């Protein structure tokens, strides 16, 4: 699966989604939890935690759906008293990215779903080209290093 791992390319589509859908926080990540873009977070540790939890929820929903319905659950929406979150997926090439959006009464589930469609198109258009077929595969041992690199770039601490 040739999903992009770098940050930057999805910033504009995600910012537009946040502006249009009036959500408070949004993170676009790989299913592994590696962040690709974020809007609204002030601290990298929060993004790291949110991505890890979201990836776990996404994986649980995927597996639970396969068990009970023979197909992965693609969307999770939780409506709290004041805040709600929406965990959805953004298809890209032959894979899926994960989107977490947190919103309050300024937005709604319908609005988030509406603009998610536009985000999906914008992400597909903005994604960098897939690596050549003979490129080195993304190795599991690189995960933590890439995760930290992305967080550092997002929060302006890249070396």
């Amino acid at each position, binding site marked *: 699966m040739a999903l992009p791992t770098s940050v930057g390319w999805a910033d504009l589509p995600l910012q537009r989604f946040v502006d249009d859908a009036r959500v408070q926080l949004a993170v676009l990540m790989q299913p592994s939890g590696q962040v690709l873009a974020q809007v609204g977070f002030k601290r990298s540790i929060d993004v790291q935690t949110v991505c890890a939890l979201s990836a776990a929820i996404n994986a649980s929903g995927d597996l639970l759906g396969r068990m009970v319905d023979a197909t992965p659950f693609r969307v999770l929406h939780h*409506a709290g008293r004041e805040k709600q979150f929406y965990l959805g997926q953004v298809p890209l090439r032959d894979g899926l990215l994960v989107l977490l959006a947190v919103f309050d*009464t300024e*937005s*709604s*589930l*319908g*609005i988030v*779903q*509406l603009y998610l469609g536009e985000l999906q198109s914008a992400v597909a258009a903005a994604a960098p080209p897939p690596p050549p077929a003979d490129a080195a595969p993304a190795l599991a041992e690189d995960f933590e290093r890439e995760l930290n690199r992305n967080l550092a770039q997002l929060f302006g601490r890249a070396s």
Partner: protein
Amino acid sequence: MSAFAAVIGAVTRHRGVTACLVVAEEDGIIVDGTARIGVNTAAFAALTASLYRKAGRAADSAGFGDVSFFDLEAEQGRVIAAGRNGLVVVAVADAGVNLGLLRVELLRAAATL
């Protein structure tokens, strides 16, 4: 037949009405409805519920109480909504629709929600 079939049927039988939806006010999700081909009902429901909700907040801020009826007039048509108990009945109509009759019908429909 859903619990809202009678409400929707009563609204859509008016000449010039192209869609009638029952929408959850908070979520903007369609509960029931019918529309002529070409109307993006999901987008329409989400945006109209959002407008209705915000109109309600504006009315509340002005000290006017709850919104009972909402009319949005555009170049080639109009969107009319009335709500109660967290649900909104929304009608999409051509510009030439008989607004008075439709208003009465929507208020009557909202009273049954």
